[in-house]
């Protein structure tokens, strides 16, 4: 371990396929076959640079469609928004950009249950994607005047005559400073005044339309925010939050938590804050530093979110989006995109319980469903070792621990043992065992956390 950019520690251990695979899980949606080896050849610096400077996006693989082969209608059809984005996660050449988009979706959590328009949600999604590695200040400005957010947190209900504090509070509590850090209830009220002026109209047929800034609705008076006086506007609100002395520590802590499960040590925390400030609130250098940090490679595994898990399984077997079932399956596992549970986003520390684990089982089952071997016809070896090797190969040899391998081997040997007495079982059980091994590997702890 040694100091790298701006005093942030950098991983100096080996950077082989295992490290590259972990990096691809944290900064994306896991490797496609062979991708971890290719990335490892670039070395840590090269790999992080490639992820953080991906160039233009190109989508790899088949275009997405629904179960009947029709193109997706993400603006209109229920659930198509979810699979539309899942497709980007599966096919993108810029995994970190998509991962950052997912992080911002959680950070600025907006739910279509309150917005009521897939089009507005997808417009916001594009905004998050566009600004994902750029300036956090710009991102906050864009989010603040984004129509979906204006609806979600009543930004366009907030006017001079009837102020609404919803956005003002959340922008400090959840987006920039943290609950009770560096602001008072007085600041919430004053920020709400500064944020007045956004309006929209309602159309009988199209719902919310004509989002605009109307200076008539803006409260032009002097506000007192963070001990400063001025005729602040919404842009000042954003600037005051981002330049608030408590913002960098909140930003670093929150961003870090999306990549590394353990909290950063004090020195790392401070060094990342300095880096963030020195870069004038740029996201990219901080993300790059986190991706190079030893804690990412030596610390514990991170439990994948349901969509990361789902996209990862599809990438691993090069399957594209050919069904919209992923929407309800991922929802069963606890994560429907565009529907975070509330403005604080998903609870990333509690993805797994007995109900959501069952959701993941069903995701894996749907991933495997079409390739399930037919026990009556598929010829498979009556040999536990060989079946196990084939199943590992099917998933492109994911790194499984000793316990898991042992459990799988025991299962295969015993299931084949059951078949000893009957000829038809000896014919049919190997294919069933192969199907079962693929399922079990997909839900093994090693594939749930990376």
């Amino acid at each position, binding site marked *: 371990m040694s100091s790298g950019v701006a005093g942030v520690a950098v991983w100096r251990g080996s950077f082989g396929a295992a490290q590259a695979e972990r990096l691809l899980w944290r900064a994306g949606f896991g490797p496609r076959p062979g991708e971890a080896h290719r990335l490892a050849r670039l070395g840590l610096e090269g790999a992080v640079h490639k992820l953080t400077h991906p160039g233009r996006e190109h989508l790899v693989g088949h275009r997405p469609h629904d179960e009947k082969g029709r193109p997706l209608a993400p603006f209109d059809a229920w659930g198509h928004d979810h699979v539309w984005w899942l497709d980007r996660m599966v096919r993108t050449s810029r995994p970190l950009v998509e991962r950052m988009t997912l992080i911002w979706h959680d950070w600025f959590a907006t739910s279509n249950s309150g917005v009521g328009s897939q089009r507005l949600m997808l417009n916001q999604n594009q905004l998050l994607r566009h600004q994902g590695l750029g300036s956090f200040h710009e991102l906050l400005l864009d989010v603040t005047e984004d129509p979906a957010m204006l609806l*979600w947190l009543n930004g366009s209900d907030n006017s001079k005559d009837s102020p609404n504090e919803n956005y003002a509070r959340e922008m400090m509590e959840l987006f920039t400073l943290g609950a009770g850090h560096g602001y008072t209830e007085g600041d919430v009220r004053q920020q709400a005044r500064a944020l007045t002026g956004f309006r929209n109209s309602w159309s009988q047929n199209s719902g919310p339309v004509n989002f605009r800034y109307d200076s008539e609705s803006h409260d032009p008076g002097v506000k007192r925010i963070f001990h400063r006086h001025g005729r602040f506007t919404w842009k000042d609100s954003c600037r005051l939050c981002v330049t608030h002395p408590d913002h960098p520590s909140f930003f670093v802590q929150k961003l870090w938590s999306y990549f590394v499960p353990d909290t950063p040590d004090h020195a790392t925390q401070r060094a990342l804050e300095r880096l963030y400030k020195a870069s004038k609130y740029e996201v990219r250098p901080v993300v790059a530093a986190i991706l190079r940090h030893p804690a990412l490679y030596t610390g514990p595994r991170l*439990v994948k979110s349901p969509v990361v898990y789902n996209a990862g399984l599809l990438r691993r077997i090069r399957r594209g989006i050919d069904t919209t079932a992923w929407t309800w399956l991922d929802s069963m596992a606890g994560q429907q995109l565009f529907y975070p549970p509330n403005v604080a986003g998903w609870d990333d520390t509690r993805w*797994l319980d007995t109900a959501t684990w069952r959701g993941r089982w069903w995701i894996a089952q749907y991933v495997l469903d079409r390739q399930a071997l037919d026990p009556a016809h598929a010829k498979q070896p009556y040999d536990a070792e060989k079946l196990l090797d084939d199943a590992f190969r099917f998933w492109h040899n994911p790194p499984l621990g000793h*316990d898991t391998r042992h459990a799988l081997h025991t299962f295969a040997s015993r*299931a084949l043992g059951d078949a000893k007495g009957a000829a038809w079982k000896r014919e049919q059980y190997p294919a069933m065992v192969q199907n079962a091994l693929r399922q079990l590997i997909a839900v093994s*702890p*090693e594939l749930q956390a990376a």
Partner: protein
Amino acid sequence: MTRPCNHCEGLSRSRLLHRALAEAGHGLPAIEPGMPHPAGTGLTRRHFLAKSLGAAVAVYGGSLLGLRAFEEGIAAAASGPASPILVSIFLEGGADGLSVLSPQGDPLYKKLRPKLALAGGAQLAEDDRLYWHPALGGLQKLYSEKKVTVLPAVGYTHADQSHFTSRHYWEVGATAASLRTGWLGRYLDRVGKKDNPLQGLSLDDTLAPALATAKVPVASISGPDQYDFYSRRVWGEVEQRMLETIGLMGRQPADAGLRTAGSVAAQVDRLRRQLIPFQSSNGISSPVPYPQSDDPFPQRLAGLAAMLAAGLPLHCVALTAPGEYDTHADEPTALTEGLQLTSDSLLAFQRDLEARGLANRVLVHVWSEFGRRAAENGDSGTDHGAAGVGFLLGTRVAGKMVGEFPGLQSGLDKDGNVSATSDFRGVYSALLEQWFGVDAAAVIPNAASFSRPKLVA
């Protein structure tokens, strides 16, 4: 602001919201500006296994207590005196009161319903204008035994026609958007135990908002037979061995992330094994036959009767009835199917309780968030209305109609919807006082302003 109601986008969103509420156990946003949060928003939830029940129970609230405390609390409450049981059955979507009890004796009926008007069927003894829907033979039979109280036009003045808002009002027992606890939840907060989650039980995947409490725990049990783990083209003994492997992978790993995934898998395995007795339909034996259906409703009622017979300390129970009641189009088919299964299942449930000697302890309340427009629309359907129909079932009901049918001539409001002749908050107040024996004023806001019908004999 209004939105078009194309086969009720609002309803499906409302369903989604309510589902998400229980799934995530997190707070939820309003779905439209000004619309209320479902009651129960923000409660925490945990899964645990009630050994006395052998079913997967999700517990809402009461998070300071451990699993053992719940198990002991359930056992202690089960050995206490038997309390009266209220079963709330929700016809989701706004059931068409004018089809459930069709006013064939009203001269305007056929004019308002040229396509949908029903003809024939059994006349209601208490009002010769009204006829039972042909699918409601079960309820009609119980009615003839004086075990049904009919509320032909129940609701509230200035009915809100949003599914979401109106059902919220019914759930919280007040026309208040901001209330976060259900009316039964507030009752349980007063009389319930801090360690007995079964006192408020949703027989559903999700918690019924009417049961949402602020202090004491309540629970939901979806069918215990639904905790299944299918894998295509794996069956028989291979499938058994596969499932037995779930809890064995990644044991005792040093890594915290793997440990989490491994320990949840082990819990999954334990839960799955403990639910095995419920996987087949003969997990519950009933003294009477229930309707055969893909819908879980009859099985849930059968399970409920079995739980009561086993002495489990239930108090307030909530279920959603089968069927589609948001009948904007093709109403006759949709309505008949749902009403038939609901009514047949309730008849079986009543007979089951009678056979088990439990009938005097149970009262069933059937309700919907609103009725439907008196005039049919152009799609062989009806749009959202105001007052609707409700029922109370049981051997202890007073059996006398509550409120009259107001008639289609003078009984419609300016929007052409049936006006309420009884108020749901008065019904709740009467249930609290006459069935549970508590002061309604402590549960229902402004209870004093609603007159109480006599509901319990």
